[in-house]
């Protein structure tokens, strides 16, 4: 099934809430102290702002036609126009950058680049994301 690279996405808002930052840092195992709490105005930990979190993987992947059960993550290029801060609300605007196919051991590998631009409430650019989702081939049975 061919993937849809021309899909358009409406921008959404995402707030870097303290509780989500705490969950993220706890999952990493990097809590500075027991009972540590995130504070508004401090930098958002690197890695939290990804389209999966800020917009929703399901909405983007299903619109493109990716099979979630065969989709893995390949990496991200993150550009920080300035440091995003905890408590800020961003406008998140995703788009499909490119779709390419290569041969893999288990069949065709489809690389989908998802681009996301994050702007602050004044409309100024804060962060740009280019993430790669990889759909693996169907294994022969």
């Amino acid at each position, binding site marked *: 099934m061919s993937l849809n690279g021309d899909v358009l996405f409406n921008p959404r808002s995402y707030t870097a809430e303290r509780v989500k930052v705490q969950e993220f840092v706890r*999952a990493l195992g990097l809590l500075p102290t027991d009972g540590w709490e995130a504070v508004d105005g401090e930098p958002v930990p690197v890695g939290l702002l*990804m389209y999966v979190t800020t917009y929703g*993987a399901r909405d983007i992947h299903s619109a493109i036609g990716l099979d979630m059960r065969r989709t*893995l993550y390949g990496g991200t*290029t993150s*550009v920080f126009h300035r440091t995003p801060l905890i408590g800020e609300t961003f406008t998140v605007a995703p788009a499909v950058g490119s779709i390419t196919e290569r041969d893999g051991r288990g069949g065709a590998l489809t690389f989908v680049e998802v681009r996301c631009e994050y702007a602050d409430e004044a409309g100024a650019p804060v962060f740009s994301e280019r993430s790669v989702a990889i759909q*693996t081939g169907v294994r022969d049975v």
Partner: protein
Amino acid sequence: MFEAGDQLEPMTTPPRDRLDIAYMSVAMGDPNLVHLDDTVAAESGLPSVIAHGTFVIGYFGAYLSRLPGGHELGELKTELLAPVFPGQALTVQGRVVAGAVAGGGTVIDLEARRGEVPIARGRAQLRAAPR
């Protein structure tokens, strides 16, 4: 202040178990069952659930934030090379490619390894933090 060619001190990450990985799924709102269900992981040829690639990016970010000197992150490229399975710890280490942190404009190559196995590589560009 760092010089080009400097090998930076490594950082060992704490091993994450299945519950920690599930917790990351909650933190990210990630519905991908490859992180939660061994059966789904097997459909992608994996022996078990895997940790999110976000763990590596988070560790790269934490590593960079601990470097001395007033700087902020301008760009971070991360490429995942191999999966991380429950219970595995990583070693993150950087090498200065160019520039000096105090003066801004530093480029650092990053590597995350599981023993001798490369898990991810990255490149970070640091700049002087605004006053």
